[in-house]
C-alpha cells in the first residue's frame, strides 16, 4: 500500500499546502463577510475520529466472529454473512439517505431529519464541523453505528432466517427504525436530545443501538418462532475460539464506539475510554463469579458474555460516570443479564444468541441506572440550565427515553416483519434449516470446503 502511495506523496503535499495557503488567505476574508469564523480542522480530534471510525468498523467482523462461533457448523458462514451483509447494505443506505434522515433538520414533525445537502453526502465535500473535524469523518463514524445495530439483531433469529429476506429486513429496519431513533436522540433538534435539562443521556448508543436492536431482536425471534428441534436437541457452538477472538475485537473496537462518541480528542474522550475499560472488566469478572457460584465452573462463553454486558451498559453512560460508577454499572448489568437469560430459558422462546438478553437488557440497565452515578459537574451544569435538577428528574427523562425506544423499535419491527413476511417469507424453509444456511443460501461451507474431513 505504502509503495503505491509514495510516488504521489510530493504531489499530495503540494496540493495540501496549496489548500492550506488558500484557506489562510480566504479564512479572514470569509469570516469578515459571514460574520462568523469557518471552523478550522483540529488535526488531533480528526485523527482520533478517523481512528474511531476504523475501530467501530472492526467491531462488525468482530461481531461476525462472535456470533459465527456460537452457531452450529452448518450455519457459520450464513451467520457471519449477516454481519458482513450489513456492512454493504447499511453503508450504501447511509450515504443515500441515512445520514440525512438521522442528522438533517427535523421534517414531518420531527419523525426524522432531511437535508438535500446530505443526499449522497453531496453537500459536505469541503465542510468542517464546529468540533474541528471534516463532516465526512463524522458521517462515516456514524455510518458504522448504523451498520452494527441491525447486525446485532441477527443474533436473535440466527440459524433460521432466509438470507434474501434478512437483507430486505435490515434495509427497512435501518431506514424506518434506526434513522428516526438516531435523529431523536443525537440530532441537535431531536426531541429526546432536548428532553429535560440537558437531554436524555445516551452517550454512545444505549437506546439507539442496544435497546433498539435488543427489543427488535426479541420481537423478531418470537415472530419467526424457534429453530427446528429447539430446545430438546442440544445445539452446540461450532468454534468458541472464534467467539473469543470476536469478543476481543469487540472490546477493542468499543473504544472507538464510546471514546469516539465524544467527537473530540480530549478530556471527555479520556473519561469515556476509562469508563469503557472498567465496565467491561467488571462485567466479565462478575459473570464468572456468579457462574462459578451457580454452576461450579467459569466458562469462556460466560466471560465474554460478561464483557459484552458491561460494555453495553456503559455505552449510554460512558460520558457521565466516573470509574466507580462504571464498575457498578458493569457488575449490575451482568447480574441482571444473567438473570434475564435464566428467565429466557424458563420462558422458552428462542433468542438464539441472546441479542435481547445482553443488548436489550444491558442497554436498559445502563440507561436507567446511570443516573445514580452521574458526575457532579454534569448535574451542576444541568442545574444551571434548568434552575434546579435532581437525579430523580433525570431518571424520569431516562425512563421516558427508554420507554419510547422500546415501544418504537418493538412496534415498528413487528409491522415491518408482518408486511415483509407477506412478500418475502422471513423464515428459512425446512430444507434450508436442515441443510444449513451456508449450503442452502450461499452454496459454500465454512470449514474444509475443497477437501472435507
Amino acid at each position, binding site marked *: 500500500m505504502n509503495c503505491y502511495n509514495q510516488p504521489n506523496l510530493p504531489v499530495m503535499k503540494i496540493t495540501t499546502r496549496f489548500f492550506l495557503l488558500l484557506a489562510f488567505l480566504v479564512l479572514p476574508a470569509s469570516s469578515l463577510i459571514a460574520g462568523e469564523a469557518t471552523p478550522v480542522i483540529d488535526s488531533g480530534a480528526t485523527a482520533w475520529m478517523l481512528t474511531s471510525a476504523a475501530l467501530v468498523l472492526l467491531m462488525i467482523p468482530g461481531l461476525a466472529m462472535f456470533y459465527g462461533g456460537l452457531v452450529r457448523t*452448518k450455519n457459520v458462514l450464513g451467520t457471519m454473512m449477516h454481519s458482513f451483509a450489513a456492512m454493504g447494505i447499511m453503508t450504501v443506505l447511509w450515504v443515500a439517505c441515512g445520514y440525512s434522515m438521522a442528522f438533517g433538520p427535523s421534517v414531518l414533525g420531527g419523525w426524522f431529519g432531511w437535508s438535500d445537502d446530505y443526499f449522497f453526502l453531496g453537500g459536505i465535500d469541503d465542510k468542517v464541523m464546529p468540533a474541528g473535524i471534516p463532516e465526512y469523518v463524522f458521517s462515516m463514524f456514524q455510518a458504522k453505528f448504523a451498520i452494527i445495530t441491525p447486525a446485532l439483531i441477527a443474533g436473535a433469529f440466527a440459524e433460521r432466517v432466509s438470507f434474501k429476506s434478512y437483507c430486505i429486513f435490515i434495509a427497512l429496519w435501518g431506514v424506518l427504525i434506526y434513522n428516526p431513533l438516531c435523529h431523536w436522540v443525537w440530532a441537535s433538534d431531536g426531541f429526546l436530545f432536548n428532553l429535560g435539562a440537558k437531554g436524555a443521556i445516551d452517550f454512545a448508543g444505549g437506546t439507539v443501538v442496544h435497546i433498539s436492536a435488543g427489543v427488535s431482536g426479541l420481537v423478531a425471534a418470537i415472530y419467526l418462532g424457534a429453530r*427446528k*428441534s429447539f430446545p430438546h*436437541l442440544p445445539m452446540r457452538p461450532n468454534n468458541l475460539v472464534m467467539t473469543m477472538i470476536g469478543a476481543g475485537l469487540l472490546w477493542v473496537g468499543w473504544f472507538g464506539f464510546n471514546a469516539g462518541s465524544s467527537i473530540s480528542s480530549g478530556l471527555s474522550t479520556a473519561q469515556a475510554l476509562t469508563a469503557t475499560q472498567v465496565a467491561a472488566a467488571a462485567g466479565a469478572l462478575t459473570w464468572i463469579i456468579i457462574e462459578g457460584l451457580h454452576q461450579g465452573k467459569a466458562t469462556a462463553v460466560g466471560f465474554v458474555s460478561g464483557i459484552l454486558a458491561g460494555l453495553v451498559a456503559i455505552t449510554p453512560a460512558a460520558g457521565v460516570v466516573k470509574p466507580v460508577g462504571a464498575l457498578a454499572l458493569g457488575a449490575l448489568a451482568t447480574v441482571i443479564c444473567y438473570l434475564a437469560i435464566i428467565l429466557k430459558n424458563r420462558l422458552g422462546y428462542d433468542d438464539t444468541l441472546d441479542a435481547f438478553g445482553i443488548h436489550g437488557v444491558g442497554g436498559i440497565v445502563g440507561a436507567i441506572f446511570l443516573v445514580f452515578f452521574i458526575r457532579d459537574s454534569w448535574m451542576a451544569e444541568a442545574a444551571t440550565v434548568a434552575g434546579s435538577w435532581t437525579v430523580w428528574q433525570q431518571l424520569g427523562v431516562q425512563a421516558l427515553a427508554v420507554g419510547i425506544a422500546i415501544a418504537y423499535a418493538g412496534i415498528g419491527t413487528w409491522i415491518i416483519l408482518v408486511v415483509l413476511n407477506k412478500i418475502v417469507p422471513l423464515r428459512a424453509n*425446512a*430444507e434450508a434449516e*436442515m*441443510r*444449513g444456511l451456508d*449450503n442452502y443460501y*450461499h*452454496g*459454500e*461451507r465454512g470449514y*474444509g*470446503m*475443497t*477437501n*472435507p*474431513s
Partner: protein
Amino acid sequence: MSILTSTTMKLIIAIIRENQLDQVREALIDAGITRITVSHVSGHGRSKTEEIYRGQVVIPNLVPNIRLEIAVNAEFVDTTCNAIISATKANDGGLIGSGKIFITPLEEVIRLRTGERGPDAI
C-alpha cells in the same frame, strides 16, 4: 456362547447426509434406540454436490457424510433401519446420495464398566 452371540447381535452402519443427522437421531430416539456413535466421514457416492467458489461451480472430490454405528440385538434391527429409512426419506424425496445402511454380524460386546459380555452388554 460365542456362536449364539454372533447370530443375535448385529452392527448397523449407516452412511447418511450430514444434514439428515438431526432427523435420524430424533427418529431413533423416538423408536427407543438411544445408543449410537456418530462420526464425520467423507467419501465418493454417486451424487455430485456442487459448491460455489469465487463464482465458479466446483464439485468437491470427496463428499462429507455422517457415519452412524449402532450395535443392537437382532430383534431391534428392523426398528432401527426403519427409523433411519423413514427419517431420511421424509426429508429428501429420494434424491441420489441419500446414503446406505450396512448390517454385519457382531461377534462380541463388552461393557467396560462392568465387564458384562454379550447381548446384555448392548
